[in-house]
């Protein structure tokens, strides 16, 4: 993600924005309780493909930085393996937060991933459950 600004404006209005309300409504998770221990990032098997680390994603969500969270690749790399959730000392389900961000982004019309985007080779070889899951998670 190249368009990430080098500084962020944090205000009460941002932290209490519509994005934050919807995030809480969809995920049921209290992102504010995260104290950035980084255990989710060290557990995550997919970090090489991410631009924001899982703990950074939660941090940006805490600060109400919706455009950073919505434009990051991270939530589309999350495989929902729940290793982060199993190890989080504050019992936050990062996968739920990622799914809420994806759903919110889909509502904004931001990301679209469909059958055309899958290569023929993958379509022929991948098991059905992989295709069903990928479309369920990433396509809207």
């Amino acid at each position, binding site marked *: 993600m190249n368009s990430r600004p080098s500084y962020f404006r944090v205000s009460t209005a941002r932290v209490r924005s519509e994005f934050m309300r919807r995030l809480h*409504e*969809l*995920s*049921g998770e209290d992102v504010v309780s995260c104290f950035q221990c980084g255990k989710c990032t060290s557990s995550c*098997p*997919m970090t*090489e*493909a991410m631009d924001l680390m899982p703990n950074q994603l939660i941090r940006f969500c805490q600060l109400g930085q919706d455009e950073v969270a919505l434009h990051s690749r991270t939530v*589309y*790399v*999350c*495989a*929902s*393996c*729940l*290793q982060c*959730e*199993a190890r989080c000392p504050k019992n936050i*389900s990062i*996968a*739920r937060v990622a*799914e*809420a961000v994806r*759903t919110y982004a889909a509502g904004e019309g931001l990301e679209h*991933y469909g059958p055309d*985007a*899958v*290569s023929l080779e*993958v379509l022929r*070889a*991948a*098991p*059905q*459950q*992989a*295709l*069903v*899951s*990928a479309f*369920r*998670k*990433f396509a809207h």
Partner: protein
Amino acid sequence: MQIPYYPGCTLKAKAMALEQSTLEAAALLDLELTEIPDWTCCGAAYPLNYDRMANLVPLIRLITHVRDSGANALTTTCSFCFNSLRRANYAMRHDPLVRRRVNSYLHDDFAHRDYEPDPAPYQEYAGELKVLHLLEVLRDSVGFNEIRYAVHRELSHVHAAPYYGCMLLRPAAELELDDPEFPTILSEFLLGCSCGCVEFPLMNECCGSYVGVSQPESSLNPVYRVLTAARLAGANAIVTTCPLCFYNLDHHQRELIERFQSFQPLPVVYFTQLLGLALGVPAEHLGFDEHLVDPRPLLLEKEVTV
């Protein structure tokens, strides 16, 4: 013993080896797996959002049909199906809102009863049916010790690494299959099959799952880590329960061989293939042709008569 069996979509297409070996091995253990007549897709990835009723209804509908047939449990081998069905069932048991909403949907669902002269009224469902993984059936109903007595071919020279992946273990509070950090059920199963068992640190790590569909590059690293960790621990094969883990671990090895000079291929097998081998099912009935890294040379080398 007879138990309703939910195969799932992948077992009927890309993972036929898993279904074939399951049925062959179960027949030898006097375990009668009767396929559920009108099963539908489990949806693969369990929905994590709170507005998810539409995704839960087909799962619970399927479970209520099994209940209506008089059974009190159902079993499945695929980790994804197990995860979805068990979590949906858990939500029905513990979440009053989900229970009320899904029941109200299903109350109006008479599609399958339309052609009966006097449709039976829908009975409220509250998660009474047990959703079991085949491993649990083998552990609790058959017994790993009984399998050990029934072993026909000794596999003790095969050092298999149990690989759980994500869907079999997590979230542990809902699945309650095994400890999420130090699971042992597959190891016990392997020992029951007379197979050597090599536990390794990444056995509960994710293989990259379905992200490989949208970003094929992304699952190479996790797969490489899992395979090399198993190899370093001394394994000469890796055992999985999940068709997607199998695909990721097996299929990506072609690319890993090209990229990494030192990479040694490691055969990936389904747990039921090893069970079938141990019980004496002929190897040609276990679907080894579907593997990219063929395990048969290893079996011959380890003096298993294929």
